C-alpha cells in the first residue's frame, strides 16, 4: 500500500530539498510501507537519540553516509543524544588492549565531529540512559520519538509513555532529519496492546535483571502486561521503581526484543487503561521462584576457564542513575566493612552519564566510592568488551544485557558484592 504523504513530505521525496534528502525520505517511506504504514507522523519529542556512538574503523560506510548528509546540508532537525563512548582512559586495560582499542576505534574523533555537525546536543550527551533527569533528553508522555537504542526505546515507551518503534541505527537519525516517522507498530494504539499476560508469583521481590530476561526470552518482540510486580516495587514511579524498570526493561529488550511492557498499577498506560490494554487471546506466562532459578541457571559461562578469578567488574549497563550510585556506594561499603576490607577485591568500574557523575561528585558518597577503589566512568561496557583481547578476560557484571552480548559473566547484585568484598568467583 502506498503511503499518503503531506505536501512537505512529498516535496522531500520528490527531491525538492535535494537528492540526499530525497534518499533519506525514500528510505523512511520504504521502511514504513514494509510494515503497512499509511502515513508519516511528526516527531514530537524534544531530542533524538542515536544508538551509534562508536568510531569503529570498520564502519566506513556509515561515516561515508554521514559525510554525504553533512556535505548536502541534510542535518538533524532536532538535537540528539547518543549512546556512550567506547573509550575512557580511566578504565583498566593492558598496553596491548589499549593498542587494539585505538586501532578498533580509530575513527572516534572524526565520528564525534560528524555527530556535532549533525546535531549532537552537547559534549556530555553520550549515554544509553539519555532519559535520566540530569541528561536533558527525557520525553513526555505521548511524544513520538525516532530512537533506536533498545534499552532507551523500551524505557521511553513503557515508563514515560512516549512512542517509538524499535528502529535500527541510521533509521533513527533519518527520522530526526526528516522530522517524521512512519506510523506503525508501537506508535499505534493497536500496536501497544499486550499479547502476553505475565503473572509474577514469586515469594520475594524478583531480581529485575532476571525477571526481564525471563520475560524477554518468552515473549520476544511482543508486548507483555505484567501482573503482581507492583506488589513488590509499588504503584508510584519513584527513583527506586524507575531504576528497577530501567534494568528490567534493558533485560527484556536484549534477552528478547521487547519494545514496550505494561506493569499493572504502575506504568502510565497500565494505570490509565488497565486491563483494556490486554489483547483478545493473550497468552499467559507464570513466573515463580523456580522459573527464575531455571532462567538464571540456563545462562552459559563463556569464559575459557569457568573457575577463573574475575579480572574486572562492570556495574552499569544501562548506565546507573544517581540513586543507584548512592545505593551501590552504601551496599558496597557495608559489604567491605563486614569482610574487613577497605578496597574492592576486583578492579571495578561503575558506569553512568557524565552529568549524573557531576551531581554525584558533589556528595560525600563520591569520595566514599572512589576511596573503595571503584572507578567511575562514562564508557560503554559493551564496546569495551567488543575488543577481542578484553573479551578473553574473565569479567563479571550485574547486567543481563552485557552478559547477552559479550563474554561477561552475570551475577546478582548480592553475588557481585560478595565477589568485590571477598574476591574469588
Amino acid at each position, binding site marked *: 500500500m502506498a503511503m499518503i504523504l503531506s505536501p512537505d513530505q512529498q516535496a522531500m521525496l520528490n527531491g525538492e530539498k535535494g537528492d540526499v534528502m530525497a*534518499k533519506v525520505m525514500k528510505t523512511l517511506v520504504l*521502511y514504513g510501507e514494509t510494515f503497512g504504514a499509511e502515513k508519516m507522523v511528526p516527531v514530537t519529542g524534544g531530542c533524538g537519540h542515536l544508538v551509534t556512538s562508536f568510531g569503529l574503523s*570498520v564502519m566506513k*560506510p*556509515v561515516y561515508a553516509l554521514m559525510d554525504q548528509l553533512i556535505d548536502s546540508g541534510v542535518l538533524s532537525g532536532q538535537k540528539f543524544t547518543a549512546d556512550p563512548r567506547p573509550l575512557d582512559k580511566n578504565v583498566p586495560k593492558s598496553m596491548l588492549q589499549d593498542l587494539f582499542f585505538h586501532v578498533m576505534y580509530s575513527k572516534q574523533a572524526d565520528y564525534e565531529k560528524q555527530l556535532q555537525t549533525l546535531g549532537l546536543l552537547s559534549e556530555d550527551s553520550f549515554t544509553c540512559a539519555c532519559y535520566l533527569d540530569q541528561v536533558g533528553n527525557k520525553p513526555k508522555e505521548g511524544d513520538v520519538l525516532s530512537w533506536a537504542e533498545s534499552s532507551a*526505546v523500551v524505557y521511553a515507551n513503557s515508563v514515560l509513555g512516549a512512542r517509538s518503534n524499535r*528502529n*535500527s541505527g541510521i*533509521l533513527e537519525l533519518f527520522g530526526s532529519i526528516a522530522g517524521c516517522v512512519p506510523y506503525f507498530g508501537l506508535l499505534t494504539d493497536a500496536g501497544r496492546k499486550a499479547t502476553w499476560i505475565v503473572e509474577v508469583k514469586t515469594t520475594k521481590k524478583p531480581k529485575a535483571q532476571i525477571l526481564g530476561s525471563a520475560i524477554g526470552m518468552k515473549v520476544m*518482540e511482543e508486548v507483555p502486561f505484567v501482573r503482581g510486580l507492583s506488589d513488590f516495587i509499588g504503584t508510584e514511579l519513584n527513583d527506586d521503581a524507575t531504576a528497577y524498570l530501567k534494568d528490567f526493561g534493558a533485560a527484556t529488550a536484549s534477552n528478547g526484543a521487547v519494545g514496550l511492557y505494561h506493569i499493572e498499577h504502575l506504568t502510565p498506560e497500565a494505570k490509565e487503561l488497565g486491563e483494556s490494554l490486554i489483547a483478545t487471546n493473550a497468552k499467559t506466562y507464570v513466573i515463580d521462584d523456580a522459573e527464575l532459578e531455571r532462567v538464571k541457571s540456563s545462562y552459559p559461562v563463556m569464559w575459557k576457564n569457568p573457575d577463573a578469578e574475575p579480572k574486572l567488574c562492570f556495574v552499569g549497563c544501562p548506565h546507573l542513575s544517581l540513586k543507584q550510585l548512592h545505593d551501590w556506594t552504601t551496599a558496597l561499603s557495608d559489604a567491605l566493612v563486614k569482610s574487613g576490607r577497605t578496597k574492592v577485591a576486583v578492579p571495578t568500574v561503575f558506569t553512568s552519564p557524565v552529568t549524573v557523575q557531576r551531581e554525584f561528585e558533589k556528595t560525600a558518597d563520591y569520595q566514599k566510592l572512589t576511596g573503595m577503589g571503584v572507578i567511575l566512568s562514562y564508557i560503554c561496557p559493551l564496546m569495551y568488551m567488543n575488543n577481542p583481547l578484553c573479551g578473553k578476560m574473565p569479567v563479571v557484571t550485574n547486567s543481563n544485557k552485557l552478559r547477552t552480548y559479550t563474554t561477561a559473566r552475570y551475577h546478582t547484585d548480592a553475588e557481585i558484592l560478595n565477589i568485590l568484598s571477598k574476591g574469588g568467583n
Partner: protein
Amino acid sequence: MSKTFQGRVVVPGSATAQALVSKQGFNTLASFQKALMFKDKNAKCSDQNNPELYEKPMHGAALCLPQTIGSTTGGMVLFCAAALGQQPACLLFSKPIDSLAAAGAILADVWTDVSMPVVDNLGEEFLSYVTTGVSVEVKADGTVIVG
C-alpha cells in the same frame, strides 16, 4: 525435486544461490562482527551461539531465516556488509520481516549499488523444507524455488 514458495517482496530483485539456513533467529551484529572487523570477503559467520551458521561463509549465500534478533545496530551492520561487498545474495524470511532487518535491507537498497533481494512471509514450511547447500532461485515477484 524442486518446490515453490510464494512470499512478499521487501526489496525487489532476482538471484540464484546456495541456501544457508538458520532455524533460529539471526543475530546480525554477532554474525557479521568479525567479517567486518577483519575484512573477510567471504563473511564467515562469527555468531558462536548459532551452530547452524557459525564459521560458514555468508557472502553470496541465500540466507534463509525466520527473523533477525539482537542489537538495534543490526540494520546498520547489514548496510555496512552490503557497502563493503560482504552481503548475502538474498535474504529469505519465513516470518514477516522485523524492523532491524528491514532497515538494513532498505538502507542497502537505497544507499548502495548492491542487489540483495529480500522476500519475507515465506511460511514455516519453507524453513522446514530448505536445507543448507541446496540451490535456491528468487524471482522478482517473490517466488522462491528451492531445489
